[in-house]
């Protein structure tokens, strides 16, 4: 298994500003995933972050809005840029462990409110 922490756990931000969310894993992992969960909704994958390469973004998400860093095998950041109230969501990171069987372990999430 893996233990994942996220910072901050929640934040209230003004529109037009940016917030960087940190995700730390207690073991080395190849793939890290970032999800968005809008209020009352399911999870939507934003991007997949592999160490040493550019993140791969899903349809509807772009690097300018959600830049991701992956400096090593235990850490990643997601920035939500130029925020608007529509960005109010829970942002979750997850990992799967090398070799499979590919269940994912999730962080506790960052609850973001944009006013």
């Amino acid at each position, binding site marked *: 298994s893996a233990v*994942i922490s996220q910072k901050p756990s929640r934040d209230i931000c003004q529109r037009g500003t940016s917030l960087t969310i940190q995700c730390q894993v207690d073991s080395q992992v190849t*793939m890290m*995933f970032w999800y968005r969960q809008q209020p009352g*909704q*399911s*999870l*939507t*994958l934003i991007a*997949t972050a592999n160490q040493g390469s550019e993140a791969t973004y899903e349809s509807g998400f772009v690097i300018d809005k959600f830049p991701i860093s992956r400096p090593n095998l235990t850490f990643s950041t997601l920035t939500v840029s130029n925020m608007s109230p529509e960005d109010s969501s*829970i942002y*979750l990171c*997850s990992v*799967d462990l090398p070799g499979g*069987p*590919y*269940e*994912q*372990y*999730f*962080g*506790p*999430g960052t*609850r973001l409110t944009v006013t």
Partner: protein
Amino acid sequence: SQQGEEDPQALSIQEGENATMNCSYKTSINNLQWYRQNSGRGLVHLILIRSNEREKHSGRLRVTLDTSKKSSSLLITASRAADTASYFCATGVAGNKLTFGGGTRVLVKP
């Protein structure tokens, strides 16, 4: 877009009863997984069933998979108040990416 659709969207049962929820999906999959989320927190993995498996058990959980119908079900037996949560199915395809269904909110009344 969401691959899986879950049914029902919400379920209210008495403690001790069984809870069943269903998940349908659209495309071929490598595996199907079920997760639980308590009150806006992180997700907890419950069970994974591979595309070549038809049924799997883990404690009070029973999962079935019918790839011909592109559907899965999750049964929680002898439910407890602590089972109150949202339950999500997620389909796994190439590249380890997961696509989540809309979720079922389960309320277990004591």
